């Protein structure tokens, strides 16, 4: 395992920023730390980068301790800070040449400039680059030393659509090359498109983790909704379709199973056999959005990760 956090806690004075966080990130995968601002994502990643000591728990990067073995790790780890880190007067080519000089074996700065689409801007001072160009340069800097592990803090923040596509394809290439990529973000769409593994953090705690599809299905939410005559025999329907069916409100029904064509066929033929009128039929697949909102909402109030989502559907 490339990166391991085990019961990791980080405290600033009395404030607990990271609270017993445990997760793993492996080579050849993109792992996303997802959470709202102030959730503890940056503190976690900055601990792994060697900037913040843990107040308790342990962690390892490539089998080494990120704090005490920091200098050894710098040759194998590439990082992108959330902001800054680059002199305002420096030119992109100059910056990449500078950092290339720090590594025994580095990527060719020219080639890297081309990969992040900055060849035509190679002589423009950093302060005159657009926000997206600055982010791409910062990403290039993370890659210059051919790292085995890459830590990227909000890599797509302030980047335009084209830049996002470029960054996404770069990250997918890294994954293919077997690099362990750990990203923080609060961007759900980005996460859904990129992540092999998602760790949702809120108030310093891990509240869920898994692959995007695991997260979306584990929370009971793929289901079929339909409207029909009230007071149907739900027990009979359940038996016929082989999944739990219930009447969630007057004349609104819900079948707890992924809305496959077979399920739809089973439900409609059961209704057809009884000549029951269908008023509407909806297949609902939960998006990561829903999971994220529900989880972060409920961790706000109490610990109740309770049963259902919204079932207050209306007739059309």
């Amino acid at each position: 395992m490339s990166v391991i956090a085990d019961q990791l806690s980080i405290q600033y004075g009395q404030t607990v920023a990271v609270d017993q966080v445990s997760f793993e990130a492996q080579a050849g995968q993109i792992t996303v730390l997802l959470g709202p601002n102030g959730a503890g994502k940056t503190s976690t990643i900055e601990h792994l980068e060697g900037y913040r000591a843990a107040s308790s728990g342990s962690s390892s990067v490539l089998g080494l301790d990120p704090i005490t073995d920091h200098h050894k790790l710098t040759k194998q780890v590439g990082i992108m800070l959330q902001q800054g880190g680059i002199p305002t007067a420096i030119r992109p080519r100059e910056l990449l040449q500078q950092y290339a000089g720090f590594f025994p074996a580095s990527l060719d700065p020219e080639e890297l400039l081309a990969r992040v689409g900055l060849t035509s801007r190679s002589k423009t001072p950093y302060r005159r680059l657009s926000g997206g160009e600055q982010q791409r340069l910062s990403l290039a800097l993370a890659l210059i030393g051919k790292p085995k592990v890459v830590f990227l803090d909000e890599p797509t923040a302030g980047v335009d659509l084209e830049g996002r596509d470029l960054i996404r394809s770069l990250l997918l290439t890294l994954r293919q090359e077997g690099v362990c990529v750990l990203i923080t973000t609060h961007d759900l769409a980005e996460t859904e498109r990129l992540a092999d593994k998602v760790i949702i953090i809120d108030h310093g705690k891990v509240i869920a983790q898994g692959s995007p599809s695991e997260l979306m299905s584990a929370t009971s939410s793929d289901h079929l909704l339909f409207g029909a005559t009230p007071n149907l025999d739900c027990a009979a329907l359940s038996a016929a379709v082989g999944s739990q069916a219930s009447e969630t409100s007057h004349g609104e029904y819900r079948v707890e199973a992924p809305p496959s064509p077979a399920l739809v066929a089973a439900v409609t033929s059961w209704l057809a056999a009884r000549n029951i009128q269908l008023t509407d039929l909806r297949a609902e697949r939960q998006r990561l959005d829903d999971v994220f909102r529900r989880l972060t909402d409920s961790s706000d109030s109490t610990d109740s990760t309770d049963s259902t989502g919204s079932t207050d559907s209306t007739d059309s």
Partner: protein
Amino acid sequence: MKAIRSQIRTELALSSRQGEQLLVSLGIPLLILVFFSSIDLLPTGTDEPIDFLAPGVLALAVMSTAMVSLGIGTGFERTYGVLKRLGASPLGRGRWVMSKITTVLVIEVIQWVVLISASMLLGWSPPLSGWAAAIAGALLGTAAFSGLGLLMAGTLPGLATLAAANGLYLILLLTGGMIIPLSELPAPIAAVAKLLPAAPLAEIIIGSLTVGGSVASWAWVSLTCWAVIAPLGAALLFRWE
């Protein structure tokens, strides 16, 4: 070695691109040298103003590069997270410090070559025997003023370092015996000035490079203390973020 070379190249490229740094490191000393040697306004206490001003601006050049340029440059690097980012690279703290020291020394050599050439064109002819002591003084002064510059850079925000370094530069320029001899200052001010690092540096360089001159021992004592205490303070108090 490759890493240090790479870092020094960047440091020098960035320094040469900063207009205000060039102004402080070369513009002001040259201006003082040319202007006050042609117009005898300052009470230099010598027949030819150039005999006092030439070694005086050599001392000034050390102070401006080691304290002002280094302090302000490093202060902004810290504010912009440049040092933080370097901290995650294989460069390492030791090689970063070596690169900074080398950069300061390289710039000082360039300053001295330019200023000495200009002074000689203006008729200055220092005694050859004084150079060893002058260079020793310059090295001690570099240690002392670099320590002060880094102390400010490592403890204050970038803009505060800019203000503090420039303010201190102006005060020490006027009271450090570099362009106005200490003997011309009111006695209490001169007494305090001897305890600060500028006056001993000026005393050593001017005393060594004046025909028939000598260096008072208080200067060596005072400057050596600063050369130890200031870098030590910077090392202990410097915060990287």
